[in-house]
């Protein structure tokens, strides 16, 4: 068995610069970069916790998602090397995100327009529609006694409807 240096003599052609000699030559990031990215991630974690105490209404969710996305991009770009990697991998990743976007957009577009159908929450029950009396499966069925533990004495029976409908 000879060493891999034999391969080096075989290949002249270069393409992406990754493999002129057929060997793996990945970009090696510096220790400083990795530690810097880690500190940035910690910084954004502190920011997201801090911002959550400020009442911004519905903006809170948007801010949380934006900060999480900044953190995610740092991880994907530097820790996961997408910046230096084969661009095809980045393409696959972005396509995945696009499809997740489609998944979100179409589903929420549907469910947010159902108004009083699936939204009909009365007390502990979620009804499937006003016309039929059917309860959603898997929901909370009030029982005379707690299902599993006898020690849980005070069972909560909150009759308050949960949320205003859109």
């Amino acid at each position, binding site marked *: 068995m000879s060493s891999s240096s034999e391969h080096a003599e075989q290949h002249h052609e270069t393409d992406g610069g990754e493999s002129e000699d*057929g060997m793996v030559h990945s970009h090696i990031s510096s220790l400083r970069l990795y530690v810097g990215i880690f500190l940035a991630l910690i910084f954004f974690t502190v920011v997201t916790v801090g911002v959550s105490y400020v009442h911004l209404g519905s903006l*809170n969710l948007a801010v949380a998602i934006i900060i*999480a996305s900044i953190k995610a991009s740092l991880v994907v770009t530097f820790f996961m090397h997408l910046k230096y990697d084969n661009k095809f991998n980045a393409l696959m990743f972005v396509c*995945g995100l696009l499809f997740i976007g489609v998944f*979100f957009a179409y589903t929420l577009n549907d*469910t947010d327009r159902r108004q009083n159908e699936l939204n009909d929450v009365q007390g502990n029950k979620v009804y499937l529609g006003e016309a039929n009396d059917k309860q959603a499966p*898997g929901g909370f069925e009030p029982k005379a006694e707690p299902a599993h533990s006898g020690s849980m004495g005070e069972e909560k029976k909150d009759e308050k409807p949960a949320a205003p409908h859109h």
Partner: protein
Amino acid sequence: MTSEAAAADEYEHKEGDGHDHGHGHDHPKYLAHHFDTPAQQFDAAKIGMWAFLVQELLFFSGIFVAYGIFRSWYPEMFSAASHQLNRLMGAGNTIVLLFSSLTAALAVRAAQLGQKRNTSTYIILTILCAFTFLVVKYFEYHHKFEAGLLPGQYFHPDHHHLVAGSPELPGNSHIFYSLYFMATGIHGVHVAVGIGVFIWILRRNERGDFSKDYYTGVDLTALYWHLVDLVWIYLFPLLYLID
């Protein structure tokens, strides 16, 4: 890729035995015979791993979409139910996971540099972080079980165990805990699987399987680990930091 094919052709010509694929020429022992070069093998492994990771993202997106639907329906319930989660434990676990991502990245760097000892050290640190994460998660789950904050029909909140001064829990709060347990449960399984894979990679590293020229296993496992981190980066604010 095309350069690979051309290089392979050339290679076969020079060898003069184009019919005797993979048996006539010498390879490094880590090079599978159906690959022409280590670089091609590495690229193929990476593409495969990224396809898997994208699949993982799509897999996790189901729980996130469910979250989106229910949060847009019952924003107040989410806010109230979220108060029962321990932010300190959640934030602590976030930092633990981010640190483990750093050590995983450094393990790959050490492997790229051919530093076998450092690779092992960083992998061990990553595994320890993963265990820490699961231990914290255990204490969090323990509180939820004690407080009866469980999914669906098992939802029976016990006032003695609820967080003092927290808002009243609406009757449909079980939806939040269904999402909480499903999301963190699936994530936790991924953490546990990561521990197993890292232990395997650690053994392989100790066995001397990896070198500057071949560290695919370390690289791919770290990629998987970063994905686990990635999911948690979203889960933490979405579950713990509402309101």
